């Protein structure tokens, strides 16, 4: 029993990170129909920039803030320099552009930072908490809390603020949104900033547990993408549930089946979802007008 609980707890922790990455995917996908494969690099940047700013002498909260703001700025730059000029290009081109950006960021990170593995101290110490015979690190609670807080924040933003509703309107119908006076290019910029910032936050929260290096981004991107698919692409609630579900599945696979194949869980989930429920758990069936 305590063993099962232990696997569940570690699964929920990684699941929270996947949920954050999946939320990032969802925001950009909704605003622009682009599946942003560079999403994982934002997680890497969040961790790495915090590490180096902290090492340069800044207090940890300030370093984390710097990392999140810098990464958000980079997201905006990505939109302006790589996505906007290619507007109207076919999906193949956009997918390749985002993969290109992710390789570029990884290449730049290994030059600007280094190829070592880094970490920084956990926010609330390293003494594990005991729950019913299982243990959990205080940092895990930070990660889980972070994911839930971001989700609630996004929900309030999208339903309670004018700006958030403008984003929703743009994702429903770009042209119609433009016609009623919504500044759609600004909505795109905002979406990339938000998405990159959330990715960086995930990186900041998880680095004390998993450590970070210049090449961790790809794995996060693929897992987060799997989570978004599982929940139903474009649905924030789906992204949250999909993330936690995928994390738990991975935790159970690692615990009971094989730790070597724990990463396989995500990709078997992708194939299973596509074979049996292509719209994901919360996705709506889409139809095309000709």
């Amino acid at each position, binding site marked *: 029993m305590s063993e099962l609980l232990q696997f569940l707890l570690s699964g929920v922790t990684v699941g929270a990170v996947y949920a954050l990455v999946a939320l990032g995917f969802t925001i950009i996908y909704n605003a622009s129909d682009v*599946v942003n494969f560079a999403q994982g690099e934002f997680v890497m940047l969040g961790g790495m920039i915090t590490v180096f700013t902290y090492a340069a002498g800044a207090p940890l909260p300030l370093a984390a803030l710097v990392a999140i703001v810098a990464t958000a700025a980079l997201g905006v730059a990505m939109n302006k320099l*790589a996505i906007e*000029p*290619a507007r109207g*290009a076919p*999906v*193949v*081109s*956009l*997918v*390749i*552009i985002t*993969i*290109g*950006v*992710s*390789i*570029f*960021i*990884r*290449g*730049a990170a*290994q*030059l600007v930072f280094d190829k070592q593995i880094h970490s920084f101290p956990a926010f609330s110490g390293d003494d594990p908490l005991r729950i019913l015979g299982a243990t959990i690190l205080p940092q895990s609670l930070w990660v889980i809390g972070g994911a839930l807080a971001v989700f609630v924040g996004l929900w309030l933003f999208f339903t309670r603020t004018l700006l958030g509703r403008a984003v929703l309107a743009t994702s429903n119908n770009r042209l119609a949104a433009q016609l009623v006076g919504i500044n759609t290019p600004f909505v795109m910029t905002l979406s990339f900033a938000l998405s990159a910032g959330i990715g960086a936050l995930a990186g900041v929260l998880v680095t004390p547990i998993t450590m970070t290096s210049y090449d961790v981004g*790809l794995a996060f991107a*693929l897992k987060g*993408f*799997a989570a978004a*698919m599982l929940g139903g692409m474009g649905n924030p609630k789906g992204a949250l549930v999909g993330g936690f579900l995928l994390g738990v599945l991975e935790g159970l696979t690692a615990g009971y089946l094989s730790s*070597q*194949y724990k*990463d*396989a869980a*995500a*990709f*078997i989930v*992708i*194939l299973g979802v*596509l*074979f049996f429920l*292509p719209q994901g758990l919360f996705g709506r069936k889409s139809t*095309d007008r*000709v």
Partner: protein
Amino acid sequence: MRLTPKSVTLLALVVLIALSPIFFPSGFYYRIGALIFVNALAVTGIVILTGWAGQISLGHAGFAGIGAYACALAPVHWGIHPALAVVLGAAISAVLAWLVGRPILRLKGYYLAVASLGMGILISMVLNNERELTRGPDGIDVAELGLRGVLKDAGLDLSNGQFWYFFCGIVLILGAWLALNLRDSATGRALRALHGSEVAAKTVGMDVARLKLQAFVISAVYASVAGSLLALQNKFITPDVAGFMHSVEMVTMAVLGGVGSVAGAIFGAAVLTLLPQVLTVFAEYEQLVLGAVMVLVMIFLREGVVPSILRKIRGRGE
């Protein structure tokens, strides 16, 4: 007689492959040439899938992995001749592509990209983890094809590099010829029609899902044979051949050269195979340059380098 674009492409390819060795300063260049041909073969498969059928695969390296490890494992475990192992690998890849593609290609959109991504990573994970069979990440030796010995007995004595250069060159010419024939066949025309408008293709009675599935299976066979050739000429293979980055490289080569044309595919393969050789001096910048090239080509030369240049030359033609 007026030459069709098809014969121009093939003729240019034959001349390039036959005459390039004149300019090779050392034997090392044969090896680079053979690598270019192997990559070009795999990328020709991508042209069929992405350029003509309009589907993206992010897991084609998985098929290359199957082709490569078929050549590594089948001769040792089942005593199959390496040449037959190539066929076996291609058959396994085709069946797998059919199994994965059949349910997925009924859906509209980029789902094949996602499914193939998952499939490719699972294949590379199995190759890395099943150490007892594949020896894991360190790689495994591959048997000798034996054709060079046969040629030697027949009086044609080639160095190892020369043999693989010409052998891969001939396979590439064959592959390009088949692809170009396919392009002009009823299936090829139907594929390009559905790329233009899936709804229109469906309206005139085309079985869209089946056509896309055919393209996926054919392109999987191309990737698998390319993987086999790579394993056989290196006599050694590691699971990297099936890695995600290799899949991305294949798509990038195709898109860089021009995903709609076989000539473009070969050009893209040549550039991206040579790039790391040139960049070894700046190995640290390799990823930076590769990423920048991908983004810039997609923004400024959307159709790829070769079609964009051809269009410039022809003026407003087409």
